[in-house]
């Protein structure tokens, strides 16, 4: 499934400090272009729906578990496309609804390679940051690969919500991304932190 229009809002769902990403000049034009696309095609969802591609509390998203829109590159064995980043168990890649009235949908997004603190210090973000290919696409039943950059935990992807169905365990950070096989590709619905 490749449904979903770019979101009106992206937010770091876990809160924390506010960072201003310091993007390279090359990336900046891509950001401007995708933002223009966001303004042009706002979704007709209920007013209480928001979108998140970031459910990772690691500082500067340095150590996150990523699921990606596209398969990995076979030359680098890494995944580069837009991703949904987390470092906790996610019962449903669809998203969640705290009270039935508001909804948070999980989506793929691009992530910066560097962050600039409010006081001007620069910090490296995630290695091989997720780019904007697939930015705004819903994460559920839509991932082709996984890339775990968390050295403390392995993660397991499941074909169905609530850790049901088929599974694939992605080990602690070992430097390679892995494609989801034909039974799991575009069928991801939950993931568990181990």
């Amino acid at each position, binding site marked *: 499934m490749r449904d979903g229009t770019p979101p009106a809002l992206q937010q770091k769902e876990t809160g924390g400090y506010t960072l201003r990403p310091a993007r390279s000049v090359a990336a900046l034009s891509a950001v401007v272009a995708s933002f223009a696309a966001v303004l042009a095609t706002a979704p007709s969802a209920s007013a209480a729906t928001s979108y998140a591609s970031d459910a990772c*509390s*690691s*500082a500067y998203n*340095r*150590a996150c578990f990523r699921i990606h829109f596209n398969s990995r590159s076979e030359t680098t064995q890494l995944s580069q496309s837009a991703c949904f980043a987390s*470092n*906790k*168990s996610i*019962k*449903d890649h*669809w*998203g*969640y*609804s*705290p009270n039935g009235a508001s909804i948070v949908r999980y989506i793929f997004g691009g992530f910066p390679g560097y962050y600039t603190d409010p006081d001007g210090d620069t*910090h*490296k973000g995630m*290695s091989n940051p997720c780019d904007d290919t697939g930015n705004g696409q819903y994460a559920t039943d839509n991932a082709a690969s996984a890339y775990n950059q968390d*050295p*403390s*935990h*392995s993660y*397991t992807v*499941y*074909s*169905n*919500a*609530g*850790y*049901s*169905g*088929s*599974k*694939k*365990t*992605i*080990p*602690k*950070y*070992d*430097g*390679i991304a*892995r494609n989801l*096989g*034909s*039974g*799991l590709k575009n*069928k991801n*619905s*939950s993931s*568990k*932190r*181990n």
Partner: protein
Amino acid sequence: MTKKWMRSAALAASCSALALTAACGTQHAQGQQTVKTKTEAGSLPDATSRAKWPTAQVESGLAAGMRLPLEDYMVSYPDEVDVENAKDKVKTACMARLGFTFAPPASGTTPALSYDGMNMERRYGITDAKTAQTYGYQVPAAAQEPADDTAAEEAKEGRTDNWYEALENTCIPEANKKVGILYETDIAGDLAAESLEVTKTNLKVQAALSNWSACMARKSYTKFPEPLQAGESFAQSTGTQASQTEIDTAVADVDCKESSGLVKSWFSAETSRQTQQIGDHKAELDAEKARNTKMIETARAILGQN
């Protein structure tokens, strides 16, 4: 780190081979007979942790005792734990050598949901009436993960850009070289996922699915055409406690699975399918298993060293 006690080294080596013996897990400080169970990174899984590990076959519910053919080619949870802990041991020593602290939580110390990549307990959705009655579609409290400890851990390790550079450029490659890469290929897992997907269209499975749906409808749960989707709406809630509605639905779900024979039908269809897959992919499955076996042996040797 010197090998101080020959006897404890031998015990540690045989313990890592056995992996499940209670004596292997705990630290006995009896004069000179201390069994060294701490890696530089932290404690390896002790007897208490090991006692909570999933068993090789599901113990209760409709999937009890079921084992599918491709499981012969899968890495078991205890083996996966040993490989990860051996790699962590290498990474920890490497980072220390470079002047950094690396202290990941040991694998095997947090609850696991299944014994291997087949996910038998929840492969066809929930299958245990007892669990459904208490937890609905939620995993048991014991299997829920602890609160977010990321900030504390990152602070403890003093993570900087240089820390990550050392890990990524030197220590992860070192561990990959010395132990191996876990699930570098996962032919068994990929085939198993394919098997579950493909057998949905099996005639007997389709018949059982219809019966399950009809049964759920008779109990007034008409919204779920597929058992694996039954828990979905509940998975979108943020509470950890199941509502009464969720529990009622889950109990009905398992009850209907029993009366429709869905689990048995699907298991039977998958057994046939996976037998065929094994025949079609024998050489690569055997090669993958041989690589895994070698990696696990290497891991155990590393864990056995003091």
